[in-house]
C-alpha cells in the first residue's frame, strides 16, 4: 500500500522535477511512511510513498523492468499475484523480487491492458513507457484505491490524493458548484467527481492513456450481477458462500506483516474475524469503536464476538469532543464534502491501530452491497411490488423496514404508507430505488443558490452503462450503491483515506470479484430478501454465537451536528459568520443561516436526518474551502526525502543510460 504521484510535462523545466516530486510526495507521505522514491526523465516524473507490506526489502518503487523502458508507481495490492507470477513464468518471464509490484509490471509488459481484468485486488497505478513517451493510469474495479488526475496548462498531473497537487507550481483549487450540487443530491461523489473544478477521479475499472497530448479513457469491466456460477440449491449456495469467503480471506492474509481485523460487532466483520482466526495460529488483533452515546454503541456485541474468538481486542471510545477536535484533520484527508461525521472515529481508530503495531486490517465493507444487507433493497422491492399488495401486507412490510427510526413506529405507519404510495412509481429515470433517499439530498441542494438539475449527472452515469437498463429494480439499486455510497464514502472518506492517514492498509474480503459474482447468483433465488443477508447468516450460523449470527444490521453512525451543537468549537465561525459564508460564492446564505440557527438552537431530537446531513455538508464545504481553496488552514507538509532514479538529459550525460540514483530532500 502506498501513495503515488506524478506528472507528464513536455514543455516544463525538467531540472525542477525532483523538487516538485519531493514536495508532492511530502503531501501524501502518511500513505507510505516506510520509504519514498522517485523517477524522472525530461518529460515525466513518478513518485511513490511506500508502505511496505509484501517483500519489504526488495519491492522499492518506482520500479522499472530490466531494460529501463517501463516505470511503474503503484498503490495497492494484487492478491492473486502468486498465481499471476506462475502464469507469467510459464511464459518465460523472469523475476528479480517476490513482490506483487514486479508481477504487475511484468503483467502489463506481457499483456498490456488485457492484464487488468485478471487482477484481483485494490489498486491504482501509473506506468510510463519511455520509448512511446506514454503514461497509463489504471484503477481497480470497485474503487478501493484512489487515483486523481488533472490537466494544468499543458501538463497532466496525477496523485493518490488531491492534496499533492498543492505542491505543483501554479496549481490552484476551486470548488465546483455544479459538481457540489450533484454530490449533495446523491450524498457522495460519483466515481469521477471530486467537487473541485478540473480535477477528476479515475472511474471504477477505468484506465487512461496519455500519449501525444491526447487523453483516452476506457473501462475494462462493467459491473453486472449475472456473471456468477449457476446455483441449483440453497445448500449449494450456502456451501459456496462459505468456501468463496474462506478463499477471499486467505488471499487477503498474504502479507509479510501481521494482519488485524476491524470488528464492528455486526455479522460481516464477525465473519471476517472468524475466518481470519481460523487461518492464523496466534490470537487475531481486533480493533473496535465504542461510543459514549448508547444509541450508537455496539460494544456489547464486540465483546461477545472478540471473547468468543479469543482475539486480542482493543476498543476506542468516542465522544462528542473527539468528533469535533479531529474533524478538520480528518476532513483534510477526506478531501471531499461529507454528509456524516462517522469517518472521524475511523481516523482515530487507524491511529490507534498503527500505534499498536498493525499496518494491515481486514474489514467488512461490501457485504451489504453484495448480499443485499441494506434496508434500501427491501424498500425498493416493496415499492416496486406496491400495486400488487393488499393494505395489510404493505403495513407489515413497512413496519419491518426501519425499526430503529422513530417515525417508522406504529403510530405513524399510516402517514408513512401514504408517502410510499406517492413513491411507488418511478419519477427519476433509472433512479427509482433511490428516490426516497434523494429527497434528503434534494434538501441539501438548497444550500446552493443555483443547484440546477442535481441529478442530471447520476442519471447520465446510469444511462451510459451498457447493462443498467436491463437490470431488475433491486439490481439497479445495487448498481447505484456500488457507484455512489460504497466508493464515494465507505471505501474512500470512511475507508482508505482514514486508514492511510496513519499508514494502515484496509482490505475488504467481501469485495473479492468472486464473492460479488457469487452473491449475484444467489440473491433472491431462495428467499424474498426480507430477512437481510439470510444465506450469509446461514453459512456461518454454526460457527458464530447466535447473538451475532442473528443480529440485525445496526447502522454505523457517529454524533453528527449534535457534537457541534454541544461543544460549540471555534471552527463554527466558518458557518456562523456572514463574512465567512460570503467566501462561498455558490451558497444560499439565507438558507445556510436558517439551517445553522436551527441546528444550534433546537434539541437534537428535533433535527431531522436531512437537516443533520445538510449541516455536515455545509461544515465540510466551508472547511475544505479554508484548507484547499484559500489555503488559510492548509496543513503544512515537508518535502519527502526520496531515492531518485534520474533519467534526465543532464544525468544521462554523466551516468550512461541507466540513470543515477540519488537521495533528494
Amino acid at each position, binding site marked *: 500500500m502506498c501513495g503515488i504521484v506524478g506528472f507528464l510535462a513536455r514543455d516544463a523545466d525538467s531540472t525542477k522535477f525532483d523538487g516538485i516530486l519531493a514536495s508532492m510526495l511530502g503531501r501524501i507521505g502518511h500513505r507510505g511512511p516506510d520509504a519514498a522514491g522517485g523517477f524522472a526523465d525530461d518529460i515525466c516524473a513518478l513518485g511513490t510513498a511506500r508502505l511496505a507490506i509484501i517483500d519489504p526489502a526488495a519491492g522499492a518503487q518506482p520500479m522499472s523492468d530490466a531494460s529501463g523502458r517501463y516505470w511503474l508507481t503503484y498503490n495497492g495490492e494484487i492478491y492473486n499475484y502468486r498465481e499471476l507470477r506462475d502464469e507469467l513464468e510459464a511464459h518465460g518471464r523472469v523475476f528479480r523480487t517476490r513482490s506483487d509490484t514486479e508481477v504487475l509490471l511484468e503483467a502489463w509488459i506481457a499483456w498490456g491492458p488485457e492484464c487488468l481484468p485478471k487482477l484481483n485486488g485494490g489498486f491504482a497505478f501509473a506506468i510510463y513507457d519511455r520509448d512511446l513517451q506514454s503514461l497509463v493510469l489504471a484503477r481497480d474495479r470497485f474503487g478501493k484505491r484512489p487515483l486523481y488526475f488533472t490537466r494544468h496548462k499543458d501538463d497532466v498531473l496525477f496523485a493518490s490524493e488531491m492534496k499533492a497537487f498543492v505542491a505543483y507550481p501554479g496549481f490552484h483549487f476551486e470548488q465546483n458548484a455544479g459538481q457540489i450540487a450533484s454530490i449533495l443530491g446523491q450524498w457522495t461523489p460519483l466515481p469521477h467527481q471530486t467537487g473541485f473544478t478540473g480535477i477528476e477521479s479515475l472511474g471504477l475499472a477505468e484506465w487512461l492513456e496519455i500519449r501525444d497530448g491526447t487523453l483516452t479513457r476506457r473501462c475494462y469491466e462493467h459491473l453486472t450481477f449475472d456473471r456468477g456460477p449457476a446455483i441449483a440449491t440453497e445448500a449449494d449456495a450456502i456451501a459456496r458462500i462459505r468456501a468463496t469467503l474462506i478463499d477471499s480471506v486467505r488471499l487477503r492474509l498474504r502479507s509479510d506483516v501481521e494482519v488485524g481485523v476491524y470488528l464492528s460487532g455486526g455479522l460481516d466483520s464477525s465473519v471476517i474475524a472468524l475466518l481470519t482466526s481460523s487461518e492464523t495460529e496466534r490470537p487475531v488483533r481486533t480493533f473496535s469503536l465504542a461510543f459514549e452515546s448508547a444509541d450508537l454503541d455496539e460494544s456489547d456485541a464486540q465483546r461477545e464476538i472478540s471473547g468468543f474468538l479469543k482475539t486480542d481486542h482493543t476498543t476506542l471510545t468516542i465522544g462528542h469532543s473527539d468528533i469535533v477536535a479531529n474533524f478538520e484533520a480528518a476532513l483534510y484527508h477526506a478531501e471531499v464534502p461529507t454528509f456524516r461525521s462517522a469517518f472521524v472515529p475511523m481516523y482515530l481508530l487507524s491511529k490507534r491501530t498503527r500505534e499498536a503495531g498493525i499496518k494491515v486490517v481486514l474489514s467488512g465493507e461490501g457485504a451489504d452491497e453484495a448480499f443485499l444487507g441494506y434496508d434500501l433493497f427491501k424498500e425498493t422491492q416493496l415499492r416496486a411490488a406496491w400495486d400488487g399488495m393488499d393494505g395489510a401486507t404493505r403495513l407489515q412490510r413497512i413496519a419491518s423496514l426501519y425499526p430503529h427510526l422513530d*417515525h417508522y413506529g406504529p403510530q*405513524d405507519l399510516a402517514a*408513512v404508507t401514504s*408517502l410510499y404510495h406517492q413513491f411507488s412509481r418511478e419519477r427519476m429515470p433509472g433512479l427509482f430505488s433511490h428516490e426516497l433517499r434523494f*429527497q434528503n*439530498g434534494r434538501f*441539501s441542494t*438548497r444550500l446552493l443558490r443555483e443547484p440546477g438539475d442535481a441529478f442530471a449527472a447520476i442519471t447520465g452515469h446510469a444511462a451510459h452503462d451498457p447493462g443498467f437498463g436491463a437490470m431488475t429494480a433491486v439490481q439497479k439499486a445495487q448498481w447505484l450503491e456500488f457507484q455512489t455510497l460504497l466508493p464515494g464514502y465507505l471505501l474512500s472518506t470512511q475507508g482508505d483515506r482514514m486508514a492511510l492517514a496513519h499508514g494502515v492498509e484496509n482490505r475488504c474480503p467481501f469485495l473479492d470479484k468472486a464473492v460479488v459474482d457469487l452473491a449475484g447468483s444467489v440473491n433472491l433465488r431462495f428467499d424474498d430478501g426480507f430477512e437481510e443477508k439470510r444465506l450469509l447468516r446461514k453459512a456461518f450460523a454454526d460457527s458464530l454465537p447466535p447473538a451475532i449470527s442473528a443480529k440485525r444490521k445496526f447502522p454505523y453512525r457517529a454524533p453528527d451536528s449534535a457534537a457541534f451543537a454541544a461543544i460549540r468549537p471555534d471552527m463554527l465561525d466558518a458557518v456562523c459568520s456572514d463574512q465567512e459564508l460570503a467566501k462561498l460564492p455558490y451558497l444560499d446564505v439565507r438558507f445556510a443561516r*436558517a439551517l445553522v440557527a436551527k441546528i444550534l438552537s433546537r434539541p437534537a431530537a428535533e433535527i431531522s436526518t436531512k437537516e443533520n446531513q445538510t449541516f455536515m455538508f455545509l461544515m465540510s464545504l466551508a472547511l475544505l474551502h479554508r484548507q484547499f481553496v484559500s489555503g488559510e488552514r492548509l496543513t503544512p507538509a515537508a518535502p519527502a526525502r526520496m531515492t531518485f532514479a534520474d533519467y534526465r538529459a543532464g544525468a544521462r550525460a554523466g551516468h550512461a543510460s541507466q540513470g543515477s540514483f540519488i537521495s533528494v530532500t
Partner: protein
Amino acid sequence: MQVEDRIRAFIEQQFLVEFDATFPEDTDLFREGVMDSFGYVQLHRFLEREFDIKFTESELTDALLVSCTQICVHVLRKIAQRGAATSGAAMDDVQPLPITA
C-alpha cells in the same frame, strides 16, 4: 390565527422555507426537497394534533399532502366535516372541497 396561517407558519418554521412569489404556496414540497419521510410524519402529527382531526388511510393515499395550499384545503375540509358531525348533520350533506393544488 387562521388555520391557513398556522399551517403556513408551521411549514416555514419546520422546513426552513419562506413562502413568497419565488416560492408560492402551491409548490410541491416533495419535488423541491423540502419534505422527506421524517418531515412528512412531523407534518402529519402536527395537523392531527393541532386541529383535532384524523386522516384516514385512504385520504392519505388518495390525496397526498404535497403543498401548503393542498394541505390547507384538506384540513379545512376535515374541520368542516367534524363540525357537521358535531352539529348532527349527516356526513353526506358535507360537500367535499375541490383539490386544486
